[in-house]
């Protein structure tokens, strides 16, 4: 009758917020150190060691920030999609926490991608903003991020908000490829794709290495920020519950 539940293993052991908090506490300093190391190495390599582009000169070094943020802009949304499945299908109690905390970080990476792209575009293409297919898709991605954040803030109760946001995230995930395709199509209809050559110049290994290191650095940075935000969110929810319990006692 009182069979004890099977011991939780792996992924599911993190379903216990307390255990997650302890794990995050142990991991965070290490991850922060790795992030700082990767950033130091990647930035040094990218800004000082890697050769400047023979056409674009020094301005192409902005790539070492721009491209990883573009990767993260998409990567974070993919992670949120998996979290949404975690909320709806597996009912993992931390999935909606992870998703809520990831959204503003993802939006941040997307903004960073757009800003650095704009800064890069000015010397290279001679304009701050071009209705280029990629930029436009990223802009729409940002709008979807903002909608999801707005939805989080509109619903008070975390559980309900989590499920509503999860559905919206999945609908967005279904739509994103269609949006990407339609924007590409729209762009070729209006103007010839002159900005990026279809083959693209192959990147020299001396530039590729710092780029990959920076990509890794951005990934770890996301991991750190996500953990910090999740800790805060879990503690926040606890504090709210305690406050409500105390209010109930007083009443």
């Amino acid at each position: 009758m009182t069979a004890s539940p099977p011991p939780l293993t792996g992924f599911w052991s993190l379903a216990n917020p307390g255990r997650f908090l302890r794990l995050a506490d142990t991991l965070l300093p290490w991850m922060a150190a790795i992030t700082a190391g990767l950033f130091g190495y990647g930035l040094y390599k990218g800004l000082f060691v890697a050769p400047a582009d023979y056409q674009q000169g020094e301005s192409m070094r902005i790539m070492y920030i721009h491209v990883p943020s573009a990767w993260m802009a998409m990567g974070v949304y993919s992670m949120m999609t998996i979290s949404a499945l975690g909320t709806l299908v597996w009912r993992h109690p931390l999935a909606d926490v992870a998703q809520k905390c990831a959204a503003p970080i993802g939006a941040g990476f997307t903004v960073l991608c757009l800003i650095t792209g704009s800064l890069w575009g000015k010397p290279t293409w001679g304009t701050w903003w071009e209705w280029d297919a990629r930029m436009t898709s990223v802009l729409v991605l940002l709008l979807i991020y903002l909608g999801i954040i707005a939805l989080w803030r509109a619903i008070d109760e975390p559980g309900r908000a989590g499920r509503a946001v999860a559905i919206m995230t999945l609908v967005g995930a279904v739509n994103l490829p269609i949006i990407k395709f339609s924007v590409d199509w729209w762009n070729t209809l209006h103007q010839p794709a002159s900005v990026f050559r279809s083959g693209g110049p192959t990147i020299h290994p001396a530039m590729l290495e710092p780029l990959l290191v920076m990509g890794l650095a951005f990934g770890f940075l996301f991991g750190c920020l996500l953990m910090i935000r999740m800790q805060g969110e879990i503690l926040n929810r606890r504090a709210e519950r305690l406050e409500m319990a105390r209010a109930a006692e007083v009443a």
Partner: protein
Amino acid sequence: MIAVLRAVMTREIRLAARIGAGAELGLVFFLILISVTPFALGPDQKLLSRLAPALLWIAALLATLLGLDRLLQADEDDGVVDGLMLSETPLELILFAKALAHWLVTGLPLALIAPVLGLMLAIPPAAMLPLSLSLLVGTPALTLVGLVGAAVTVTLRRGGLLLSVLVLPLTVPTLIFGVAVVREASEGRAFTTPFLLLTGVSLIALVVSPVAAAAALRMTRG
């Protein structure tokens, strides 16, 4: 089951016909939007004719968007949604029937009246039929995507603006292909490709939206 769906649709259409500020208001809004833009752009026929496809589609988008809060809100307020959820008929189908009825009183009239407004914006005669066709095929996608947004935000007290923020980015493909149909036609080219793509977008929305909206309704309560 068919009887239930028919009852849902009849009820929707009857409500739209009898309650003031219903279907015809969307049309009036569409008309006003199209009449106001020349005041901003100037009466230049050439300019208007070039911008017409975009103007008509944006007006259709906004008119559809503004009607979306009526899709579920009133039924949520008086408890009809809870009743529908208890029904044996799958909620997905009921929501599809509701969206269809809603489109019949909002999207369809827009598609029918659009050529007249296109005349005011100096659209070439050859593009009139494609304009109607594109709205006929494209506005269901707008209503269906809106259905998901409406279902997600229905329990919120001030969901209107949020609904637009959620739904608008998802309407980008519909807008692109819809405008492309009219533009290609008014420049005398074949518009089959964008038209087929527009149809595809609508069909995808037809499959995904009722399921997502039903899930949203179930998940956001309790």
